């Protein structure tokens, strides 16, 4: 009796599953499914009950404000963090990932938000270091050849034998991208890969992404540049405060919808800056040269002006900034400050003259990660926060930090939290606060909106405008061409360390500046 019953039940279950499986098979099966994932860091809830799926042959975009939990999600996908609850399902099998090696074994590879290259290895090795099944011995010749091929696909010209130490951030990012695309992956996760790339490289990257999509790879793409998202993605998923707000095919979403979902409220028109009233010249640079980096750079920077710097990655814009700020003083040429010739040999001198520089690599140069937000913000002018005995006045310091937290809406439970625990965008705001706190007269912004969400980006833009109105002279280096165009009064275009001209905002357009930045040759190649 009993056994028959059991048999019947078992058969029924079996049938059910058989049918279920049949239905499932006919649908495209997700390669990677995140099911009800939650994760919190102390009091911060980074993710709550997030479910999403990645399908082969799909470019899936993930957008959301800074600190929405995007990076956290992908770190869970690659086994760096373990979720507090929820499951990761790979090809239908629930899996627990404990390390990124494990994730890679499952065909999941990621480019992380902060590029992590091996400074002592050369570029080719950096690309191939985590490749599996390379055999026991290293075949250097083959590795160089393969590396060249991969870089060619990205159309970047880097010496594959060069050490990665000292590579500019953008080049590091290209290496990371090369590493990821050269792998044999089924899921490719890219956390803000384009943050420091300029239009040309982005175009190349998108070509490759489209190829991968055609090959059936699932691509998860994170970016704060909505234009890019709409250009490349098939599906857009929006996060806010650790929750999944919506996930729709791209054609069902408008830019306004997306922003509303991200910010939680509708936003007005994109910020448009009015040209400012140009005052006297604060900083002027004549024939500045640094052997092997740039030469013959000359420009005037007026109080209240935003002077944009456009160019491809590696064109030398950062080097010019570093020379102006005294970190790598120029070999030739002259800098005038308030019409007086000056010789800036160290950042300290520059800060004394009230020049501030917001570096492009915030982790290496901008922040002291394990220290508190407050301590980071007051760092360059510590002496102002100490009494005669050199004892730090904590209350004063905290007050400053508190002010900036409100002014720049830094999302954090406390200003005593170490900066390491903030999301990328909020870290950027801390660096910005730090330099604003020095009350600069000349503010050099190197990729100030790198990794900043739309809302915050607009805030930064407003802030730049405000600062300019207050009479601060601003050098704005950005690879985001629309940003440069929208924010600058005049634009200096740099190509391979040479100044290609200074364009007036009223007359310049995107085509023209791109043309100058790339030179004729590349333009032709691009069109071909």
């Amino acid at each position, binding site marked *: 009796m009993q056994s028959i019953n059991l048999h019947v039940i078992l058969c029924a279950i079996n049938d059910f599953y058989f049918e279920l499986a049949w239905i499932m098979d006919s649908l495209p099966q997700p390669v990677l499914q995140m099911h009800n994932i939650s994760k919190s860091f102390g009091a911060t809830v980074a993710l709550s009950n997030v479910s999403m799926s990645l399908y082969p042959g799909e470019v899936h975009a993930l957008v959301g404000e800074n600190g929405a939990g995007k990076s956290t999600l992908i770190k869970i996908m690659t086994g760096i963090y373990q979720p507090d609850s929820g499951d990761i399902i790979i090809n239908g099998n629930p899996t627990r990932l404990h390390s990124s*090696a494990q994730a890679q074994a499952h065909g999941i590879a990621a480019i992380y938000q902060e590029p*992590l*290259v*091996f400074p002592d290895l050369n570029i080719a090795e950096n690309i191939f*270091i985590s490749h599996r099944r390379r*055999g026991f*011995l*290293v075949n250097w010749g083959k590795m160089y050849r393969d590396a060249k091929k991969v870089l060619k696909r990205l159309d970047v010209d880097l010496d594959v034998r060069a050490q990665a130490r000292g590579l500019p951030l953008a080049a590091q990012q290209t290496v990371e991208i090369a590493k990821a695309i050269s792998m044999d992956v089924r899921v490719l996760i890219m956390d803000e890969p384009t943050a420091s790339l300029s239009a040309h490289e982005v175009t190349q990257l998108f070509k490759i992404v489209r190829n991968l999509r055609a090959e059936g790879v699932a691509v998860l793409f994170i970016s704060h540049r909505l234009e890019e998202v709409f250009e490349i993605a098939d599906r857009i998923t929006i996060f806010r405060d650790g929750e999944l707000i919506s996930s729709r095919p791209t054609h069902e979403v408008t830019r306004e919808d997306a922003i509303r979902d991200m910010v939680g409220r509708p936003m007005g028109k994109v910020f448009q800056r009015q040209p400012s009233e140009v005052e006297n010249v604060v900083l002027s640079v004549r024939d500045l040269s640094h052997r092997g980096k740039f030469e013959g750079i000359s420009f005037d920077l007026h109080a209240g002006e935003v002077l944009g710097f456009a160019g491809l990655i590696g064109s030398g814009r950062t080097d010019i900034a570093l020379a102006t700020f005294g970190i790598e003083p120029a070999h030739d040429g002259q800098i005038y400050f308030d019409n007086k010739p000056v010789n800036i040999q160290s950042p300290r001198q520059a800060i004394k003259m009230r020049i501030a520089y917001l570096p492009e690599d915030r982790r290496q140069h901008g922040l002291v990660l394990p220290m508190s937000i407050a301590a980071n913000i007051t760092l360059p002018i510590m002496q102002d926060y100490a009494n005669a005995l050199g004892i730090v006045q904590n209350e004063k310091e905290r007050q400053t930090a508190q002010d900036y937290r409100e002014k720049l809406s830094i999302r954090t439970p406390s200003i005593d939290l170490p900066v390491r625990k903030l999301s990328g965008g909020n870290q950027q705001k801390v660096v910005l606060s730090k330099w604003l706190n020095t009350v600069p007269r000349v503010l050099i912004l190197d990729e100030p909106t790198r990794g900043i969400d739309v809302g915050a980006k607009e805030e930064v833009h407003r802030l730049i405008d405000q600062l300019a109105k207050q009479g601060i002279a601003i050098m704005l280096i950005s690879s985001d061409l629309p940003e440069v165009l929208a924010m600058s009064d005049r634009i200096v275009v740099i190509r391979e360390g040479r100044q290609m001209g200074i364009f007036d905002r009223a007359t310049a357009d995107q085509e023209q500046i791109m043309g100058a930045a790339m030179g004729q040759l590349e333009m032709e190649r691009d069109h071909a």
Partner: protein
Amino acid sequence: MRRVRYFIRVQQLREISLLLILAAVIYFFGREIEDYYTARMYNRIATQVALIAVIAVGQTLVVLTRNIDLSVGSIVGFTAFYLGDQLSKNPNIDLETAVAIAVGVGATMGLVNGLIVAYGRVPSIVVTLGTLAIYRGLLVEYSGSQSIQFRQLPDWIKTLPSEVLYENFGLDLRPLPAIAIGVMLVFQVVLLYTIFGRRLYAIGSSPEAAELAGIPSRRMIMLAFVISGALSGLGGFMYLARIGTITTDAARGLELQVVAAVVVGGVNIFGGSGTVFGAFIGVILISTIELSLIRMQINEFWKDALLGAFIMVAVLIDTFIMGWLRALWSRTELRRASSVQKVQSI
């Protein structure tokens, strides 16, 4: 220059710079000391270098991963004593077995270091500063404060250091230096051509990135410590063969000599760069200075000060030569880059 560039990578500039310094040092002492360029001097340096060189190779692997192994002296002491004890109890142990015992004991001690560092996530300097004392304590316990005496050893090990494997122009190749050269060559190849070797560089270069790149860092680090331990064990064997009389103080303080040699040899103490060959030259450099100072018959009380000064000067010159070579390098690189550009635009 382009051809040269093709064969020499930037990282190898360091070795070139070290070789230049070594040549300068030898030239300097050659002028100061009569009969300096003799086969005898070569033989002295060769035998003196052997022990430290072997241990420095292991240390290099560890330092490459941004770790340090301070327990090598104690491991050498312990294995030397342990092996001596075994040999005196069973005189029919042969060479192969003896080496295997020494390497095995050393590797075990290295394994303990490696496990605690890699899987216990305790900084290596903490671990090996601890085991430096603990292994020495073990030795004292094990020995019961007795010593190993020359007469207790079997004959083959007594004569081992003085055997000559190959001789030419009075330059002998004896077993101990031969071991050192062999070990150096093997690990130079391992570091350059194996995945394991390259991963050691990667780990030391950026531990965080290594973790993210899916490199099994812990296993690699552990392995580096095991190898360092095993080579220290081999060093223990060499120490026994060379010194013959082993007390509980054997090889005390060796770790500082080894670290000095590795560091002078251009291995970055913060990991990620340096080669076994460089460390080897570092050992030769220091030993040459030491032995030449002995030969120079300068006042006993001046030797330490001069040695310290010489090391400092060597490091200084190295820094400058390196800077110069690097500058030269990047200039040729630039020239090449611009010439390529021209070819393209034509």
